[in-house]
C-alpha cells in the first residue's frame, strides 16, 4: 500500500455509495407509486406524471453531481449572496408567481415551475450554518447569539406564510430550531421557548385562518365533516387500513385508482403505497428510511468541520421532519398541510431540494478525511 493516493481513489474510497443507493431506491419507489396512482386516470397528463418525475430525477442528479464536486467551503463563502438571491426569488413569486391550488408558490423559469420556497430551505440551512460557524464561540449560544439567525429565518418565513404555505414556512422555523439545538444553546433558552410556546399556543389559534383551524379540528373528529375537510383524512385512513397486512398488490389500490384519495401522487402518496404494499411493505419502507436517516447522522457526527456538520444536521432535520410529518398526516395524526414525502411525492422542487441536500451531504462526507 502506498502512502500516496490519487484524489480520485480517495474520493471513491470515501464516497458514501450506500447513501446514494438508498436515495435512488427511494426515488425509484416514488416513481413507481406515482405511476400506480394515476394508472387509470382519464387524463393523459396525469398518466404521464411519472415520466415528468423521472425527468426531475435526472435534473436533480445533475444538480447533485455539481454540488458534490464543488468545494463546499466555496458554498459557505457564497452563503449571503445565495440567501439574498433566494429571498429575492421568494419576493418575486409574490408578484409574478403562478397561482396553483389557491396560493402563490411557483416561480416559472424556462418552462419549469419551481417552488422557490423549497430551494430556500437549503439556502437557509447553509446561511444558518455559516452564521453559527462564524461565531466561533465556545459553549452554548445565548439569546443574543440567536437573534441574527432568527431574523434571517423569519424573513423567508413571513414571505412564505403569506403565500399562504404554512407547511413550508413551519419548516424554516423547525430547521432553525434544530440547528441551534444541534449547535448547542443555553438550557434556559430551551426552557423559555417551551414556556412561551405553551403560552402562545392558544393565542396563535386565533391568528390562524378559519380553514387552518378546521384542518386542526378535523384531526380530532374527521367524521364530523365527512364531505368537507375530513374527507381527505378519512379517505387516507381508509386507503392505508384497507391495505391490511400484505396490501392489495402493486397497481391494485382502489382508493387511489378510483380517485377517492385526493392529492394521491403528492402529499398522500404514502397512503397509495400503504394500500398497495400493506403493513409489511410500509414497515420495510420506513425501515429503509430509518437507515437512510442514520446514514446522514453518521455524516453529521463525523464531518471534519463545524460548517459541514451543521449543514448536514440541517438537511437531516429537514428531511426527518418532512418524513414524519407527512406520515403522521396521512395516518390521521397531524393536521393536513402541504408537506410532501421526501423522494417519494411527485414534485420537482422538493425532489431537487432534497437531492441538493444529499449532494451536500455526500460532498461533506467525502471531504471528511481531507486535510485542511
Amino acid at each position, binding site marked *: 500500500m502506498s502512502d500516496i493516493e490519487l484524489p480520485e481513489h480517495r474520493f471513491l474510497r470515501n464516497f458514501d455509495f450506500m447513501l446514494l443507493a438508498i436515495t435512488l431506491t427511494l426515488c425509484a419507489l416514488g416513481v413507481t407509486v406515482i405511476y400506480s396512482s394515476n394508472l387509470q386516470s382519464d387524463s393523459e397528463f396525469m398518466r404521464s406524471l411519472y415520466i415528468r418525475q423521472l425527468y426531475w430525477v435526472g435534473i436533480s442528479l445533475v444538480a447533485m453531481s455539481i454540488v458534490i464536486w464543488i468545494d463546499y467551503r466555496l458554498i459557505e463563502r457564497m452563503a449571503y449572496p445565495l440567501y439574498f438571491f433566494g429571498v429575492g426569488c421568494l419576493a418575486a413569486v409574490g408578484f409574478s408567481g403562478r397561482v396553483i391550488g389557491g396560493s402563490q408558490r411557483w416561480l416559472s423559469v424556462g418552462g419549469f415551475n419551481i417552488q422557490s420556497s423549497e430551494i430556500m430551505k437549503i439556502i437557509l440551512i447553509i446561511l444558518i450554518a455559516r452564521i453559527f460557524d462564524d461565531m466561533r464561540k465556545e459553549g452554548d449560544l445565548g439569546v443574543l447569539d440567536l437573534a441574527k439567525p432568527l431574523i434571517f429565518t423569519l424573513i423567508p418565513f413571513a414571505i412564505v406564510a403569506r403565500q399562504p404555505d404554512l407547511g413550508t414556512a413551519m419548516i424554516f422555523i423547525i430547521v432553525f430550531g434544530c440547528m441551534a439545538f444541534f449547535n448547542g444553546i443555553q438550557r434556559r433558552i430551551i426552557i423559555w421557548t417551551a414556556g412561551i410556546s405553551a403560552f402562545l399556543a392558544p393565542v396563535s389559534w386565533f391568528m390562524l385562518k378559519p380553514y387552518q383551524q378546521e384542518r386542526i379540528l378535523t384531526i380530532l373528529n374527521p367524521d364530523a365533516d365527512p364531505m368537507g375537510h375530513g374527507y381527505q383524512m378519512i379517505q387516507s385512513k381508509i386507503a392505508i387500513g384497507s391495505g391490511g397486512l400484505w396490501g392489495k398488490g402493486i397497481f391494485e389500490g382502489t382508493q387511489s385508482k*378510483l380517485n377517492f384519495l385526493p392529492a394521491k401522487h403528492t402529499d398522500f402518496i404514502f397512503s397509495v403505497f400503504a394500500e398497495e404494499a400493506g*403493513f409489511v411493505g410500509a414497515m420495510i419502507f420506513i425501515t429503509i428510511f430509518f437507515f437512510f*436517516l442514520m446514514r446522514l447522522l453518521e455524516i453529521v457526527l463525523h464531518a471534519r468541520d463545524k460548517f459541514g*456538520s451543521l449543514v448536514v444536521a440541517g438537511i437531516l432535520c429537514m428531511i426527518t421532519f418532512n418524513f414524519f410529518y407527512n406520515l403522521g398526516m396521512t395516518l390521521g*395524526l397531524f393536521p393536513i398541510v402541504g408537506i410532501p414525502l421526501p423522494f417519494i411525492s411527485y414534485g420537482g422542487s422538493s425532489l431537487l431540494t432534497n437531492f441538493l441536500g444529499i449532494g451536500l451531504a455526500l460532498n461533506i462526507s467525502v471531504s471528511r478525511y481531507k486535510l485542511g
Partner: protein
Amino acid sequence: MLRPRTEWESFIKHRKSMGPIFTALVGVAFVIVTLRLWHLQIVQYSSLADRAENNRVRQMTLDGRRGKILDRNGFPMVDSRPSFQLSLIPEDVDNPRETLDFLRRRVDFDVDSTLDKMRHSPSFQTIVIKKDIDREDVAFVEENRLDLPGVFLEVKAWRNYIFGQEASHILGYLGAISSAQLAKAPKSVYSMDDFIGQYGIEKVHERTLRGAKGYKRVEVDAAGRELALLEVIRPKSGHDLRLTIDFTTQTAAERAFEGKMGAAVAIDPNNGDIIAALSKPGFDPNVFAHGISGDSWKKFIQDEFHPLQNRITRGQYPPGSTFKIIMAAAALEEGIVSPETTIYCPGHYRLGQRTYRCWKKAGHGSMNLTSALIQSCDVYFYTVGLRLGIDRIAKYAKMFGLGKRTNINLGAESPGLVPSTDWKKKARGKPWIMGETVSCSIGQGYNLVTPIQQAIMIAAIANGGKLVTPRLVNSPRPGTGDRPGANPKSVSVSPDTISVIRNALRLVVTAPHGTAWRIKNGPYSYAGKTGTSQVVRMKKNETSDIEEIKFKHRDHALFVGFAPFDDPKIAVAVIVEHAGHGGEAAAPVARKIMDAYLQKINVPPSTPQITGHVTDKSVLPMENPL
C-alpha cells in the same frame, strides 16, 4: 485558517451527545408510526376494508316490473309503462341556480323548491327534479347535456291506471311506503322510497304484483362514474293479476252512474265472481300512484261526499224495501203466511198509539205475498213482521249474509247491522220496542246493509238459495287468487219459498203495478226488488243552503235484481244516493249493467214480454243498450 482548539473540541463533544438524542427521537417517532400502522392496517383492517369496498362498489337496486291488473278477459286495466325521471346529484352541479334556470327554459318545474331540496340533503344524494317528463323535455335534456352538469335522466316504471276513475275503489292505488310499513317489512323486500299498494287490489295483492328486486353491483370512481359491472342479480317481474271484473260491464256501469253518487255491484250468482263494482264519487288512482301532494290529499279527505270511501264494502245503508225479500222468506219458512194468505192494506197500520203509513196512502187493498212484493206494500210486511218478531227476522237476514262481512278480499269491510233484541240490549242497553219491529220490517230502523251484501243476497235468490262468496281475482295460479267460491253455503230455505219469491220478483218488473215497471221493456227478462230508503234527517238550521238541504234529505234509491230470469247470469245491487225512488232511479241503472254484461256474453234477448204491450215500440230489443 486555524481555529482555537477548545472551540472545535467543545463542538465535537457536544455533537457526539446529539447522536443518541437524535436516534432516540427518531426511534420514538418510528415506534409511533409503527403502532399507528398496526392499528389501521391490522386492528381496524376489516372495517376500513369494508369502507374502501363501499367507496368502490355501488349497489343499485333494480326494480322488478309490477304485475298488470287485467280484467276477466285479459284486457289490461292497470299496467306500468316506462317513464323518464329528471334527477340531479347536487355535488356534480357546479352552479345550481344557473343550471336550473337553463333547464326551466324548457321543462316546467319549481326551481326554488329544487334548490331548497339541494340545500337540505347530502350532496351525493340524488334529487328528483320532475317525474314522468314528456318526450320534448327528454330531447331537450339529451341535447343540452353539456350545459346541464349533474342533471341526468332515469328510466322508471310508471304505474298507469289506464281508465282513470274507472273501478278506482277496486283497483286501488300505489303510495309511498310509510315508515311503519317499512319497519314491518323484511329488509330485502322494500326500501325507503318504494311505492307499494296502499289501497284496493294493489294493496291486497301486493305480494303477487310486486315481484322481487334485483341488484347491480358496479365499480364506481369518486365522481360516481360506473367503471365496471361486478355482479347482477336480475329482478323478478311480479305476476299479472286477472280480475273477475268484466271491463265492458264495468264501463257500462260507470256510464250509467255518471252524475250520480252511490254504489253498484254486479255478481255472477253461480260462482260469486264480481262482474262489475263501483263506488261514486271516485278518484283517479293516477293522482296517487306517484306521490300525492298534501293539498290534494287534504281536498280528498275533506270532501263531504267522501270520494275515498269504498261504498261497495264500507257504505252502510238502510236496505229499504229490498229487505222485504228477507221478510217474505222468513214469513213463508216460519209458516206465518202461505202464498195465498191475504192481508188487507188500508194505507196505514195502527200499533198502540202510533200509526204507521203505507207508502200508498189510499192503501193497496187485499194483498197476498206476491202482490205485496210486486207493489211493495208496507202494511202487509208490518203485519208479517210483528207476527215474526225481530229475532226471527234477524235469523233470516243473517242467513242471507246480512249483518256480517262477506269476506270479499278487498281490505276493510263493514259488517252492516241486523238488529235483534240481544243486539239492542248489548249495544244500547235497552229492551226492544215493538214499534221498532214495524220499521225494521220494511228495511228501515236499525237495519244497515252494504252494497256487496245486497248483491250476495239477491244472488242467493237468483241461484236458488246458495250463498256465494264474492271473488274479485280469477287467477289460474294457485295461491294468488281469492278463495274459490266453488262450494257456496246453501241458505236453509226451502226451494218452494225461493221459487215463490223469484216469481214475485219477476212480476215486480213485468206486472202493471210492479214497482220496477220502468225496465220491463228491456231486451232481457229481469227480476228484482226496488227500495227507497229514508235518509236520516238533518236539523234544519245546520246549513243555510236550501238546495243542499233538499239534496241531503232526498231518499236513497235502491234496486236488487238479476237476469235472465230462467237462467240467471248476473245479479246486481244498486244504490243511488239521494235519488228518490228505487224503481225510478236505481232500476234503470241496474238494467244497463245487466244488459251490457248479457250482451257481452251473447245471451240472446228474450221473447217479447208476457204482459203484452206488443205495440209499444220500446219492447223491441235495443241495438245498443249503452
